């Protein structure tokens, strides 16, 4: 069976589809529109963006059928042809070798696997960022990884060259923490690194913490950002966001009650105006209700917690994202999920602030209350356009959306990146798709990663898709490159989308 080269269907198909959609849109139901993969515009009709989607699994690993879930992405902003992605991908050649990263040197057109993380075989959490302060054109990659081979150990590590075979250099390590989330900013004096962690070493239950390094990871300082009484801990997600002027925000779930099934939680945002270099970082924002550091965006949200499949085959409990305008640090957006209305399993919300987090929109921004969805990821482009990535369980399918808006979602443009069966393949472990996906902006593009069923079927990828691995789009099957069939599994997908004007 010969592998069939995949194809991109833009721009020709997209132009035709967009014109067709505009003509027929009033006559079609939303589900038909989604199934057809049209670009859905609400409030405006911009030109269709150029969209590129690539399955990250390389051709030489066509025989793999792992659940490569929970993707992440880092872009070398000085050299954006170089990117690093990750997922729960095991070392492909050794049960005791290093867990791998995906590396692209051509702007995401192709990806290769390089086993250089400091973790054996497979990480059980990994995020990373590439800063530019140390002038390594294929670095500096700063990663936060959890090694779960015996207990749970956080490694904060770096690579100066992600193509080299050198194992990443571990700069700091400790146990008893959860869900490291890395952001970094390169400045002339070096790399500033911010790693959100849920740190169980804090005995007072105020576990939301940012590990801060302002010297490229040579030293880290753990900064607690929760100042209020908790139910014994905060939620797992602690998310920093960094603006070019050194303003650093972080969002977290302040758990006020927890009964094993539901966390009654505040959505809290903290801010630092000096890159967290001062004596008391992240105390610039105080809530008017109690004068404590940390602005409460939403109080007592009811957040379901399930370590078993709850939304399709996915678990739920802690999706959270924050994004700051890189050039106007007063503008900041937060997205999270909670129980929502009666009958919902998990509902996304997005709100914003235009005054450095002091006041927030009182209600969800238009069109951003998304039912039965997870994996919110927000990013803001250089021109102020906001990108809103999420995955929604709809009609038995996982549908991955990227919504863009230049006016706080008064108008927006929604592109369906993937719509895949939610019941196939069967989960190998949790998370099924990931506890997060990711979105970044660089130049005039949004770039991101999500995970999905990897059936080679153009109907599942309305914007087109390119598989590196051996795939037959006619037969909708995968093979190992030698003609032997390979089962469908979860793969990570990279995408880039042109930012709307």
């Amino acid at each position, binding site marked *: 069976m010969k592998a069939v080269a995949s194809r991109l269907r833009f721009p020709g198909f997209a132009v035709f589809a967009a014109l067709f959609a505009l003509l027929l849109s009033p006559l079609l139901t939303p589900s038909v529109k989604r199934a057809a993969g049209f670009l859905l515009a609400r409030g405006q009709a911009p030109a269709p963006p150029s969209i590129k989607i690539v399955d990250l699994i390389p051709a*030489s*690993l066509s025989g793999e059928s792992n659940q490569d879930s929970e993707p992440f992405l880092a872009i070398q902003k000085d050299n954006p042809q170089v990117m690093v992605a990750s997922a729960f991908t095991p*070392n492909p050649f050794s049960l005791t070798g290093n867990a791998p990263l995906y590396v692209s040197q051509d702007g995401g057109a192709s990806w290769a696997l*390089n086993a250089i993380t400091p973790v054996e075989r497979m990480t059980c959490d990994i995020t990373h960022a590439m800063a530019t302060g140390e002038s390594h054109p294929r670095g500096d990659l700063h990663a936060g990884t959890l090694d*779960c081979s015996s207990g749970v150990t956080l490694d904060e590590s770096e690579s100066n060259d992600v193509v080299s*075979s050198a194992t990443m250099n571990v700069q700091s390590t400790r146990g008893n923490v959860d869900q490291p989330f890395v952001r970094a900013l390169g400045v002339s004096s070096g790399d500033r690194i911010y790693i959100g962690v849920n740190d169980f070493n804090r005995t007072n239950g105020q576990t939301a913490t940012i590990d801060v390094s302002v010297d490229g990871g040579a030293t880290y300082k753990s900064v607690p950002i929760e100042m209020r009484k908790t139910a014994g801990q905060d939620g*797992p997600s602690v998310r920093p966001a960094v603006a070019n002027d050194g303003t650093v925000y972080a969002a977290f779930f302040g758990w006020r009650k927890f009964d094993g099934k539901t966390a009654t939680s505040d959505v809290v945002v903290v801010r630092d105006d000096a890159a967290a270099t001062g004596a008391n970082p992240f105390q610039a924002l105080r809530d008017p209700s109690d004068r404590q550091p940390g602005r409460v965006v939403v109080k007592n949200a009811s957040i379901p917690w399930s370590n078993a499949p709850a939304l399709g085959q996915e678990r739920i409990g802690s999706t959270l994202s924050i994004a700051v305008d890189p050039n106007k640090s007063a503008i900041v957006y937060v997205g999270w999920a909670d129980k929502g209305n009666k009958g919902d399993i998990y509902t996304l919300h997005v709100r914003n602030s235009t005054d450095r987090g002091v006041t927030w929109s009182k209600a969800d921004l238009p069109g951003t209350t998304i039912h039965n969805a997870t994996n919110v990821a927000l990013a803001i482009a250089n021109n102020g356009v906001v990108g809103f990535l999420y995955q929604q369980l709809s009609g038995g399918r996982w549908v991955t959306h990227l919504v863009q808006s230049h006016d706080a979602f008064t108008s927006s443009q929604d592109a369906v990146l993937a719509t895949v069966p939610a019941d196939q393949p069967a989960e190998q472990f949790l998370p099924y798709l990931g506890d997060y996906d990711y979105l970044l902006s660089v130049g005039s593009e949004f770039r991101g990663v999500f995970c999905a069923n990897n059936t080679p079927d153009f109907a599942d990828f309305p914007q087109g898709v390119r598989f590196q691995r051996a795939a037959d789009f006619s037969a909708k099957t995968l093979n190992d490159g*030698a003609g032997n069939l390979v089962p469908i599994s979860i793969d990570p997908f990279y995408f880039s989308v042109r930012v709307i004007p």
Partner: protein
Amino acid sequence: MKISSVLMRSSLWGAGLLLASCAYASLATSQATDSQADLMGKSSIVFSGTVSQLAATSFADVPKSAQTIVVRVDAILKKPAAVSLKRGDSVTVEVKDASAFQEGAHATFYTTGWIFGSGVAVKELGHVLGNAAPGAATGGSAHGQEQDRLSDQELKDRMNASDCVVVGRVTDVRKWNAPKTKSGSPLHVTEHDPDWHEAVVEIQSVLKGGPVKGNKVVVRFPNLNDVAWAHSPRFTKNQRGIFCLNRDKATGAPMTKLGSKEVHVYTCLGHGDTLPLSEEARVRALLKNQ
């Protein structure tokens, strides 16, 4: 007489020399075979091939250096099932000593993986110059090693790191709840919560480690299907097998009650820490050869 004597002595000397050289050759062959077997055990990808380029790479993602050569694959001897590699493919090999190779040279390469992109790049652990050994395979999935089976070297390392290795049968499985903390004390809720369970293992023989009092051990294992524990063994009642055990350093409560006795708790967390009984001969041989 003198001539005969000289001839006789020469013949004896010659025969002795011949025998010695045969013995040496046999020993050398044996050592080479042992060495190749050892290399085979340590390698994840083994193939024979023809050097087609020096100081070159076979695909763009690999950094080129004086140590990288391109080899056209003639036959695959060993590879993971996930890796696509077949006869005729070009592989980049980072060799230890590039001066040992010339274009057109044939060799068997014992390697470990390096970069996997549009092609395969590997690192040399060893090589044997010359055409492939008789019976060398010609590629295809039939020669892929079982993806989840530990290599001899990996299994040796696992057993070296274990406090004990036992053959036994699981007689009971039960949920284990960590001792209750005081009201108001910190929680520890994460998506990686292991949901600890305990298995009581009746020991039939101890392959490594000292005798066990009462002939039973308690093994704590994660029962949650989180990624952190995706490769950790689960236990079921009446399961028989070989278990590589370590004293419990993961749960924070390293002792438990077994009957009326306070005993050490063990864990068995790594992939391949439980093996089927069919692996017993292999395990014993590896332990013997340590």
